């Protein structure tokens, strides 16, 4: 293989309801776009369910924070406001009182998306809907709409939602991340050699990409 046909795979473990994944994904996309080898980088989304005990119904995040963490509502609002400001600095919509809900169905659909080559796009579309405050972000019809916009047949999406398909894959990728050393998300792995724990500034993603290419081309 010559240097010109070598490729770099970047894998990102993420959960839909992870604000740092949402922000980190945007920064990573910027860093890849700025890379001289951008057309030879493949990005694969991996799933990591942060909290299987999320409520089964949509719950405003501030209510969830105060109930789960015992935070006063005003402090929860302040915390969300800080994250919102950082998201907006990346050009991302962020509603501080967006809904939260169990993400297993969404993550199973990300695997369906990966089977069709659009898992990354499906994840980021779900994040955009959720963090922009869409009260229907978790609804089946919304997930169908986002998926069909990416070319996934509606019957396949509804078939996954009506089954437990890909649940094993969600668990397997979670376990794989832990085995690789992840202690949270986002968790980014470049070329299965270099790991980035958490969301970092765009410049740091760029430096990591350059470092990973040195290993690919070595």
């Amino acid at each position, binding site marked *: 293989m010559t240097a010109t046909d070598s490729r770099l795979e970047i894998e990102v473990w993420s*959960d839909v*309801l*992870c*604000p*740092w*994944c949402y*922000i*980190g994904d945007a920064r990573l996309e910027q860093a890849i776009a700025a890379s001289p080898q951008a057309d030879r980088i493949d990005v694969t989304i991996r799933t*990591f369910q*942060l*909290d299987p005990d*999320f409520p089964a119904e949509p719950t405003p*995040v501030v209510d*969830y*924070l105060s109930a*789960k*963490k015992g*935070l006063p509502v005003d402090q929860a609002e*302040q*915390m*969300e*406001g*800080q*994250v919102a*400001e*950082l998201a907006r*600095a990346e050009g991302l919509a962020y509603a501080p009182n967006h809904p*939260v809900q169990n993400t297993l169905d969404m993550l199973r659909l990300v695997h369906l998306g990966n089977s069709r080559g659009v898992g990354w796009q499906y994840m980021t579309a779900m994040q955009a809907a959720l963090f922009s405050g869409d009260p229907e972000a978790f609804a089946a019809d919304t997930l169908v709409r986002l998926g069909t916009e990416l070319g996934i047949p509606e019957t396949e999406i509804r078939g996954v939602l009506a089954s437990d398909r890909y649940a094993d894959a969600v668990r397997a990728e979670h376990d*794989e991340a832990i*085995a*690789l*050393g992840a*202690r*949270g*998300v*986002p968790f980014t*792995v470049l070329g*299965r*050699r*270099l*790991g*980035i*724990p*958490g*969301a*970092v*500034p765009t410049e*740091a993603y760029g*430096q*990591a990409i350059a*470092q990973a290419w040195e290993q690919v081309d070595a």
Partner: protein
Amino acid sequence: MPEPVQPLTFLAADDAAVCDPVTGVCAAPDDESEVGNDDGARGEGAASAR
């Protein structure tokens, strides 16, 4: 047989922001939490719980 997991080299990332599945907290490093945060909340970090 599954492929053996190769140890990764980790980027030193003191300024990384991560969601912790154990605590449920999505904490930011202090420098990021300072964005728009001038009311003395430094040390709390920009955080959310997931």
